[in-house]
C-alpha cells in the first residue's frame, strides 16, 4: 500500500486526481501540488485567475456571551474595535512570544461569533490552545474544519468569475463593492456561504466558506463560470511562489516555534490597546529592546533556488553565518530569484549585499523591501 492511501482527503481530492494533478502529502492531506506546472500556474493567477482547494485548513469559532474576550486573549489586534464584517491578520503566541500559528480573525456581521481560519499543520494544537482559553470565559469553541469547506478564487478575473454565482451583499451592493479584508454572509450557487475578500497570493480575490457536502458542485460551478476567463485549478506549488512574491509568511518557514512576531515584522510598534493577550509582555519587551534578528527579503541573479536552511554570510569568504533562509523561489512575476531570511540585526538594511551558500558555493544576494510584488490598483 502506498503512503498516499493513508493521507486524509478533502471533498475535492477526487476532482484534483481526475484533472491530472500531482498529489502530495501536505500537513497529512493528499493535496494537489501542481496541475499544468508551478510557473505557468503562477502566471495564470497574476493575469487571469485560479481556483484553490483550501479545505485542509482549519476553521473554528467562538460563540457565546464572552466570545470577544476569549478571542482577545489569543490575538494582538483589538477585537473590540473590529468592525462587524471585518477580518484581520494575527497570530497565536505563547507566553514567551514565540508563534504557534498565524491566523485570520473574522468578526461576524450579526455579532454572534468570532471565526478563525488557522493552518492545517497547526490545527490540532491550535484547538487545544483555543479550548484552554475558552474554558476561562463564558463561550463555546466549535471546530468547523470538517463541516465547512473552503475554496479561494484569486486573480484579476475573480470578481467576474464569482459574482454571477453569489448573492449580493446585505446592503444590496454587488460583490465588487466588498472591501478587501471584509466578508459577508450570503449564498454561492444558492448555498449559504461566508464570502471573504482575502487571499494568499497578492491578487484580488475571495475565500469562500460553505457546507462541505457542496464542495464539488461549487468547485465545478466556479470552473465553469470562469472557463472563458482562463480560470483553472491551481496547486500548492504555485500558491507558495505567489504568497512569497506577495511577501506573505508561511508557517513552518517565516514563522515557527522559535520565531516571534517582532522579528517577523508583524508587530513593529508598541501595542496601543489595553487588552492582554497571550505573549503580550514578551512581545512588548522585544519591541522595546529591538529584535536581534529580522526577517528580510532578498533577490539574486542566480538561477539557484534559495532553500530553507541555506546560510547567509556578510562577504564571499567569511565563516560566521549571519542569516538563514526561510523560503525561496524563482519569481516568474519579478523575473528574478527571490527569497526570505532571518538575518542578524545590523546586516538587515535594504541594499545590503549578502552571500548565500548554495551547496558549498557562495552567490551574492541583495536585500530588498518586502513584498517583492504588489499588484497595480
Amino acid at each position, binding site marked *: 500500500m*502506498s503512503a498516499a492511501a493513508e493521507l486524509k482527503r478533502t471533498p475535492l481530492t477526487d476532482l484534483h486526481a481526475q484533472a491530472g494533478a500531482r498529489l502530495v502529502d501536505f500537513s497529512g492531506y493528499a493535496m494537489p*501540488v*501542481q496541475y499544468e*506546472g*508551478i*510557473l505557468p500556474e503562477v502566471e495564470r493567477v497574476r493575469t487571469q485567475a485560479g481556483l484553490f482547494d483550501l479545505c485542509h485548513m482549519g476553521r473554528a469559532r467562538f460563540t457565546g456571551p464572552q466570545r470577544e474576550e476569549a478571542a482577545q486573549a489569543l490575538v494582538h489586534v483589538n477585537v473590540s474595535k473590529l468592525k462587524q464584517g471585518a477580518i484581520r491578520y494575527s497570530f497565536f503566541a505563547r507566553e514567551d512570544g514565540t508563534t504557534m500559528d498565524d491566523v485570520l480573525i473574522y468578526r461576524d456581521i450579526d455579532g454572534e461569533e468570532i471565526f478563525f481560519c488557522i493552518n492545517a499543520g497547526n490545527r490540532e494544537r491550535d484547538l487545544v490552545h483555543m479550548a484552554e482559553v475558552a474554558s476561562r470565559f463564558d463561550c463555546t469553541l466549535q471546530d468547523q474544519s470538517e463541516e465547512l469547506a473552503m475554496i479561494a478564487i484569486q486573480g484579476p478575473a475573480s470578481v467576474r468569475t464569482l459574482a454571477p454565482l453569489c448573492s449580493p451583499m446585505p446592503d444590496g451592493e454587488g460583490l465588487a463593492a466588498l472591501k478587501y479584508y471584509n466578508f459577508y454572509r450570503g449564498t454561492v450557487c444558492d448555498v449559504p456561504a461566508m464570502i471573504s475578500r482575502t487571499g494568499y497570493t497578492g491578487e484580488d480575490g475571495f475565500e469562500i466558506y460553505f457546507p462541505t457536502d457542496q464542495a464539488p458542485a461549487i468547485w465545478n460551478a466556479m470552473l465553469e463560470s470562469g472557463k472563458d476567463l482562463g480560470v483553472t485549478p491551481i496547486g500548492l*506549488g504555485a500558491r507558495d*511562489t505567489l504568497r512569497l512574491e506577495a511577501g506573505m509568511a508561511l508557517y513552518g518557514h517565516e514563522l515557527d516555534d522559535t520565531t516571534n512576531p517582532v522579528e517577523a515584522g508583524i508587530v513593529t510598534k508598541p501595542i496601543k490597546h489595553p487588552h492582554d493577550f497571550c505573549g503580550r509582555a514578551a512581545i512588548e519587551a522585544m519591541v522595546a529592546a529591538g529584535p536581534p534578528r529580522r526577517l528580510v527579503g532578498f533577490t539574486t541573479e542566480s*538561477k*539557484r*533556488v534559495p*532553500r530553507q536552511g541555506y546560510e547567509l554570510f556578510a562577504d564571499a569568504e567569511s565563516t560566521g553565518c549571519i542569516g538563514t533562509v526561510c523560503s525561496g*523561489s*524563482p519569481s516568474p512575476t519579478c523575473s528574478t*530569484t527571490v527569497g526570505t531570511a532571518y538575518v542578524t540585526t545590523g546586516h538587515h538594511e535594504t541594499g545590503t549585499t549578502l552571500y548565500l551558500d548554495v*551547496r558549498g558555493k557562495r552567490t551574492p544576494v541583495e536585500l530588498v523591501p518586502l513584498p517583492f510584488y504588489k499588484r497595480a490598483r
Partner: protein
Amino acid sequence: MSSPADLKFTSSHEWARIEGDVATIGITAHAAESLSDLVFLELPEVGDSVTAGETFGEIESVKAVSDLKSPISGEIAEVNASLPDNLSNVNNDPYGEGWMLKIKLTGTGDLLDAAAYDKLVADAS
C-alpha cells in the same frame, strides 16, 4: 508510457545509450516530469572523469535540488553545453535534445533494462 528499449537505466532515474565504447547519458522522462519546472542544471566539463553511481552534476527545479548520478564510468568526451540554457529540452525531449554527456566508457554500474525500469517506476507510484 514505456521507456525506450534501446536504453539502460539507473534506479535513480538516469539513462544511458551505449553505442560501442561511447555512452550518451541523461535523465528519464519520469524524472523530468517529476521535477517539472526546471531552473538550473550544472554539468561537468569535457575531459573530466565520471564514476558509475557517483554524482556528476546537479539539477534543480522550483521545489527541489537533486544530484545527478552517472550510470557509466569513463571520461567525458562531449557535454551538451547549451542544455543549461534550454532546460525545456529536458522536459520535452529527455532521450533526444535533453541528452547531457557523452562518455568514453570504461565501465557501467548496475543498470536496468527498460522493462525493469518501468516496473520500478510503476511500483513506486
